[in-house]
């Protein structure tokens, strides 16, 4: 796997409302390889979402360097999934998913085909003409993932994408995401606060600590890439998740 993104010495300090300086991120290093799924895990306030927003280009006010092998083109190379689906309620599922293509003025049959494939991949083909209101929470989040992938970005950034879902739906979406990854081989950075989620999905887990936000350790997940619900029952799964949990304490 080749290098894709190197985060080098990223720091960010901001001034709180009461005038005191808060160190949000302190000298953060992280390497992300092409096609890799990297989980950022840590307590709230450790700056994991801030780091993700920097990678997305939404926050440019920081020290240090984001070194890409190929600089992402604005509006084309970053797919982003929020904790909430953030769909446009007045658009059908299909028109929500194709929003990114529309923004680029891409009306090619290839783009349309891709939207169709993605809808199929997330199991929403039958709901392409429905409004978001008519979908369940899990289906909405699937639509949001399809939207983030529709314009074929080079990296998918996910900010606690399953945090607002119930446990059963969350497990299903984990498998959906793995299936999507198997088809698209996208590089994914996933912010989460669940050790099980990080273990099940990621190739590599970066454990962060709060105040100041630092990366405490980066671990390779000792599991095969092919993961099924059975994987969750492996002793190695429990062992690794337990180790992560201890590191977070």
């Amino acid at each position, binding site marked *: 796997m080749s290098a894709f993104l190197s985060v080098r010495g990223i720091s960010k300090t901001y001034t709180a409302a009461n005038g005191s300086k808060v160190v949000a991120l302190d000298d953060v290093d992280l390497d992300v390889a092409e096609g890799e799924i990297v989980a950022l895990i840590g307590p709230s306030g450790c700056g994991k979402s801030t780091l993700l927003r920097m990678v997305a280009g939404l926050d440019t006010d920081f020290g240090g360097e984001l070194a890409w092998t190929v600089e992402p083109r*604005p509006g084309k190379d970053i797919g982003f999934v929020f904790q909430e689906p953030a769909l446009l309620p007045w658009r059908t599922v299909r028109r929500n998913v194709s929003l990114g293509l529309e923004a680029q003025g891409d009306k090619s049959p290839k783009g349309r085909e891709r939207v169709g494939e993605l809808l199929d991949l997330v199991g929403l083909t039958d709901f392409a003409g429905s409004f978001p209101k008519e979908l369940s929470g899990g289906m909405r989040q699937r639509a949001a993932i399809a939207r983030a992938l529709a314009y074929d970005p080079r990296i998918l950034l996910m900010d606690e994408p399953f945090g607002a879902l119930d446990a059963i739906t969350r497990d299903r979406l984990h498998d959906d995401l793995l299936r999507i990854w198997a088809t698209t081989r996208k590089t994914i950075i996933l912010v989460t606060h669940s050790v099980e989620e990080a273990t099940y999905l990621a190739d590599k887990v970066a454990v962060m600590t709060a105040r100041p936000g630092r990366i405490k350790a980066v671990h390779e997940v000792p599991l095969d890439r092919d993961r099924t619900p059975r994987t969750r029952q492996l002793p190695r799964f429990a062992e690794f998740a337990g180790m992560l949990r201890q590191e977070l304490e």
Partner: protein
Amino acid sequence: MSTGTVTRGPAPREERDRAGGGARARNRPARGFAVRILTTAAYLAVILAAWYLYVTLADVPSFLLPEPGEVWDAGRELVTEGQLWPHLGYTLRNIALGFVGGSLVGILLGWVLWASRTVREIFAPYMVLLQAAPKIAVAPLLVLWFGLSLTSQYALILLLVFFPMTAATMLGLRDVPADVSTLGRLLHLSRWRYLRTIQLPAAMPALLAGAKIAVIDAMTGAFLAEYLSADRGLGYLMVLGNTQNDTPLLIAAVVLTVAVGLLGFGLVSLAERRLLRWSR
């Protein structure tokens, strides 16, 4: 793939529900429409009966309150003498132009006030002043400045219409959730495209709520302007009925005014049903 099948499980049921809902929805307006017509007719019948009974039983003189039949005759006379359409058309045109123009000005101003904090802070006191002042009170001033002309009429209508639209626009543009506006930045949407694809649709519920107020205000403005300064229109008919002691004509004009009001409100409601289909 297992999750795919699990999630598809409930899907057909939901779809069937939606399809059933569609069929029902198709029947519902038809029946709802019939019920609404009947209810309206019943209300009208009660009003007319009460009116008629009161006038005959209490022996009210015709110059104070004529019986419904006389008003009907006055209305018919307007039609047969070919007076109705010029007057009605004049008023409707003024309302339509004033409403559209005022809405455009209002939306534009609302957008500017939303977009620029500086402008908002500078204009805030003026907005409060305009909101608090009874705009009807400035009507004589407008006549003084612009004369007995169309200009003063439009000025009054615009003044009444733009404010609710400005307020609605400012409220509506704030209705874009933080994540959606972040999405707009991620997709690198131009300002114009962002306005068109995200802000305006998001603001639509607020805009339509504002339009409901604005359309009534446009009518108030139009009638008032005609009342004060015109030689045409429904407002003028009222003045005519009043000065000629033609009470049936006066009441016929009032009834027409109410009908126009209902029409305007109904049109905005219709637009709302079509444009906000997604929220129902």
